[in-house]
């Protein structure tokens, strides 16, 4: 462990953020540095293996897990801007036989892996300073972060420090949006019915912005809101907290 007050953190950006929303990665770096961390972005990172694991392909998931473990284990902490990918890494030990060397390595890594917003709030006692945004917003709790990692109060506490930002309660904020990773393309009609209900609940809040901590869920909700012709704009919470609110999801740069 490096000095407790300046940990060397690996940012695991996730395959989805890499491909679809780079600003989340830059916001995460800015936030972690502001919270007193030294940040590295290991260059060989790809995918945590969640699609394979959720599809029952344990061997495929273990293969990508091994790659990711070897890549991330030299750091004091691993921070992931996604509850579901963080949870996947935290649950890596399940993919290996208990007692094996890989199981031990997976367990050690799991203990040092965190979702971004909860890491900032709980482990770095970070409070954003000097960030202002005149807007009304509502927050959706993504399920993996909420139920597997206990992320609920932290994003609200952090967002509460943004001057001018009013958070409106979302009816069913803790109800799944219907994304579910591969679920949304394997069972599109069911997923659509779920996200349609979610989109209506978001519209009913009257908020101008939808915020969340998981890009997959946000893309699902934002895509449905857009298809419905809704004016609600969707942002990853990290971008707002870093004062980097540029174009919303789907808005041309």
């Amino acid at each position, binding site marked *: 462990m490096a000095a407790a007050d300046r940990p060397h953190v690996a940012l695991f*950006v996730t395959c989805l*953020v*890499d*491909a*679809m*929303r*780079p600003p*989340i990665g*830059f916001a995460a770096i800015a936030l972690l540095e502001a919270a007193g961390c030294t940040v590295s972005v290991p*260059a*060989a*990172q*790809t*995918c945590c*293996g969640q*699609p*394979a*694991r*959720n*599809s*029952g*392909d*344990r061997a*495929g998931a273990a*293969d*990508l897990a091994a*790659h990711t473990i070897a890549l991330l284990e030299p750091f004091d902490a691993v921070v992931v801007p996604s509850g579901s990918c963080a949870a996947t890494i935290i649950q890596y030990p399940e993919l290996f036989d208990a007692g094996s060397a890989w199981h031990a390595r997976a367990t050690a890594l799991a203990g040092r892996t965190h979702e971004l917003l909860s890491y900032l709030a709980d482990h770095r006692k970070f409070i954003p300073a000097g960030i202002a945004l005149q807007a009304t917003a509502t927050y959706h709790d993504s*399920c*993996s972060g909420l*139920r*597997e990692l206990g992320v609920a109060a932290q994003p609200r506490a952090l967002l509460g420090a943004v001057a001018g930002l009013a958070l409106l309660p979302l009816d069913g904020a*803790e*109800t*799944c949006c*219907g994304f*579910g*990773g*591969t*679920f*949304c*393309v*394997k*069972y*599109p*009609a*069911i*997923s*659509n*019915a*779920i996200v349609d*209900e979610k989109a209506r609940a978001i519209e009913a809040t009257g908020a101008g912005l939808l915020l969340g901590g998981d890009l997959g869920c946000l*893309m699902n909700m934002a*895509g*449905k809101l*857009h*298809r419905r012709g809704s004016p609600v704009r969707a942002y990853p919470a990290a971008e707002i907290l870093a004062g980097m609110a540029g*174009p919303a999801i*789907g*808005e041309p*740069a």
Partner: protein
Amino acid sequence: MSADFTARAGAALADPTLKIAIDRTTITARTKRASAIAAWPEFPLARALGRDIKDHVIAHLDHYLLEFEANAIASGARVHWAETAQQACDITVALCRAADARSVTRSKSMLGEEIGLPHALAQAGIERVETDLAEHIIQLAGERPSHIIWPALHKTREQVGELFAREHHGALPLDTAEQMMASARRELREKFLAADVGISGANFLIADTGAVCTVTNEGNAELTTTPPRLHIVTAGIEKLVPSTAHAMSLLRLLVRSATGAELTQYTSFHRGPRRPGDTDGPTEFHIILVDNGRTRMRAEGLAEMLRCLRCGACLNHCVVFRQIGGHAYGGTYPGPMGAVITPILDGLAASHDLPNACTLNGQCQEVCPVAIPLPTLLRGWRDRSWREGLEPASLRGSLALWRFVARRPALYRAATALALPMMRLFARRGWISAMPLAGGWTRHRDLPAPPARGFMAQYAARQKAARR
């Protein structure tokens, strides 16, 4: 993705009345459960205790079965054992025949549905009268239950009113739920008292007394089991508890989780046949202990599922169940608990969609009063379905390709660099509304256009620029 499940789910999604019916019941159920749990700050402790009571019983199931059997026999009951659904039905039908039964009343039991008892009685030419209001509705409509607590959840009150107007003999008004219940009361009154055999399930089997506990709100269970000459109980072997006191702890959990009440209106413990001096009660009391896959569940990593109290909370909170309802699942048990149990009862090949058609959001586990790790058990089935080659070739192919590329970071970067600009060709004003291979997504929602270069490429470029 088997055509059957997708077709059934599609039909359910296309039925707007079904969604209204599902919402009316499940929203009420969720609200009532939430206030019952909020008024019971001791719930987390109670839940841990409930879980441990069930785990204790399941670990020592042989011991408790033998203790129960001995005590039930001592109370004058006759105990039968059935390994399969067929055996359980055969025993029931044989008992009815031996008693020369013409008419049988039945009080709702999910186990009865699971073993196909309604069908077996019909085959044997025995008249069956369902006495639970919802089961009565289902029987009149010739349908199957769609929920384990509210079998007629898929019907709106308007539809029930029309059904009763057509099928009931009285001329009572049928505008409100109260009037519909009153009409059913009148319709069934004489049948309760005329039946030769009453069949019930069991919520708990009490090992140290040999008693069978049933819970109802309508009072139909006692009216079903008291007047006839025979009372036949069909019960899954996982229903055992060591003593009545253990049952009380589980009742506190079960009732709040099911309907939000603190206790069912009628909580009954039946112990053997009529005794000297009794003026009512059956002269014969039979208990059929049914395995039907339970010992397999215990042996094959699903022991935790045997904790299930059949409270229905996981159904009411499931986003998938709430969209497609119970019939789409195709088995006796729908929702999260059904997706775990059905592959045991119907085989994984026929039901591998059920554990997959789930977002793994975990709300079912969160509300389960005995803390069953439903998502973990569903993952177990997914793993097995994959191993057994039941998942579609297209999925297997794409995941294999993904793994191959993701294992090779340089190739991965190159592929990303190629794919993103191609995707952008389909974008208009920031959004993609249709794109080859993305139909599952874009049929129902738009896809935000990706950036021209991914994060890793942008970051590497920035690092390089900073070093210069």
